[in-house]
């Protein structure tokens, strides 16, 4: 996933540089912050191998370079190796984004042979019991074995740790574990509150003190490790005064294709009602990217309202995240309420304050499962 300041210095001639293929929403785990849609089970009509290959060809012809195979769990697709091979032949820099469940030595070898360039593995804690309870399955040992196997095959490796109140105090131990495994990039990915994560927000938001401690641990590790391991630690946007430059702007460099072929300017975009996401089954990708109404909806800055419209910072953050603006303020064209200039900034401040009240009533965590939520009430989370 593109990071702010991670060297995306391509003068975007509006090329979908970053392509993410969500091959399937099926997954053996049940992470309660999962950013897959709440109705993930309604996406069984996955694209076929041939359809995915056509997407790869069309995207590459438009200049796409970085490719992430994600999901759900992409390893559940038996044609993964074949798709990696096709992508490599076309000239993509191929990334596998995986929970590690099902990553056998045989499959690693096959993907290495097919030209896979790097692997991003998610790990939730340095502690077995905490990991297993956070993902709702016995997964820690398998993830650790996968991590070692990935390194022994010589892949550059990103370790992605979604950060929440339950694991943030293990930052020090996670750093040590990552160092011991030989991780190249360690990413403390502060949970972003959409879909399942938004349902469970009050239980996951860390406190300011926790964040400060984690930042200090990261600073010490950077000092010690120098260039051996690159550590990303982005403070959760709820604790910031300015929003993230979400996706580098809508329809600027990022394109996600969902399992059923829907093309999305960002993987969360379906939470915004009233937008129609064309499918690669029905239209050429170039038309979808350049011409379709949805990719132009929030492109550039003509759609902006105040305070963004006249703000000198609009070139830097593009007004923040459209999905967050919708989910929290009810209007996707509003300023992302993470911004201190937003008239609705208090929504974010209040959520942070409420989650930190000592002795507050705990809510049960809703795990990502097919029947966990009645999807008729989708979008009412919070």
């Amino acid at each position: 996933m593109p990071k702010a300041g991670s060297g995306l210095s391509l003068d975007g001639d509006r090329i979908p540089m970053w392509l993410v293929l969500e091959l399937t929403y099926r997954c053996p785990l049940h992470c309660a912050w999962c950013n897959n849609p709440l109705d993930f089970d309604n996406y069984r009509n996955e694209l076929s191998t041939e359809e995915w290959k056509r997407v790869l060809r069309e995207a590459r012809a438009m200049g796409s370079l970085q490719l992430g195979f994600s999901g759900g769990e992409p390893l559940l697709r038996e044609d993964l190796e074949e798709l990696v091979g096709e992508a490599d032949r076309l000239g993509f820099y191929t990334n596998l984004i995986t929970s590690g469940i099902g990553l056998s030595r045989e499959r690693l070898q096959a993907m290495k042979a097919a030209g896979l360039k790097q692997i991003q593995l998610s790990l939730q804690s340095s502690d077995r019991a905490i990991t297993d309870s956070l993902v709702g399955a016995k997964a820690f040992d398998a993830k650790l074995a996968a991590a070692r196997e990935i390194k022994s095959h010589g892949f550059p490796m990103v370790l992605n740790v979604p950060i929440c109140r339950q694991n943030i105090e293990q930052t020090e131990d996670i750093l040590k574990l990552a160092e011991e495994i030989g991780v190249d990039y360690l990413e403390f990915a502060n949970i972003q509150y959409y879909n399942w994560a938004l349902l469970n927000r009050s239980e996951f938001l860390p406190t300011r003190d926790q964040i400060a401690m984690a930042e200090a641990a990261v600073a010490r590790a950077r000092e010690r490790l120098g260039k051996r391991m690159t550590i990303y630690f982005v403070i959760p946007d709820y604790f910031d005064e300015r929003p993230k430059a979400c996706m580098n702007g809508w329809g600027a460099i990022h394109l996600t294709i969902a399992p059923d072929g829907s093309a999305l300017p960002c993987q969360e975009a379906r939470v915004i009602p009233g937008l129609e996401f064309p499918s690669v089954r029905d239209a050429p990708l170039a038309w979808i990217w350049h011409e379709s109404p949805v990719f132009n909806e929030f492109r550039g800055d003509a759609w902006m309202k105040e305070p963004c419209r006249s703000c000198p910072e609009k070139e830097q953050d593009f007004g923040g995240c459209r999905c967050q603006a919708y989910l929290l303020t009810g209007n996707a064209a509003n300023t992302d309420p993470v911004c201190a200039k937003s008239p609705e900034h208090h929504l974010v401040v209040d959520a942070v304050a409420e989650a930190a009240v000592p002795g507050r009533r705990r809510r049960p965590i809703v795990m990502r499962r097919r029947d966990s939520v009645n999807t008729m009430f989708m979008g009412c989370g919070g």
Partner: protein
Amino acid sequence: MTENNTVAAGDVPQLSPLYLLRWEEPQQAHVMLYPEGVVKLNETAAAILLLCDGQRTAAEIIADLNSRYTSADVSAGVYRFLETSHAKGWIRIKS
């Protein structure tokens, strides 16, 4: 960064194995691809990095470039660029 990134004449720079350097037709430029991003290189930067093959010393890289770009001695600029590349982790130094 606490490490020393200076590059000396006898150092042998080599592209980091985490990076992939190649020509990209739609961009009409060389790009560096790595797990978390893409960097588009200008012509000079690409010319230097293409010579960071783990065989040539910095002095040999400069001699090679000087023989191609005759306008002025490139050494100061090349050292500066190699040091920046080293600091960014694009290249490693075998000495």
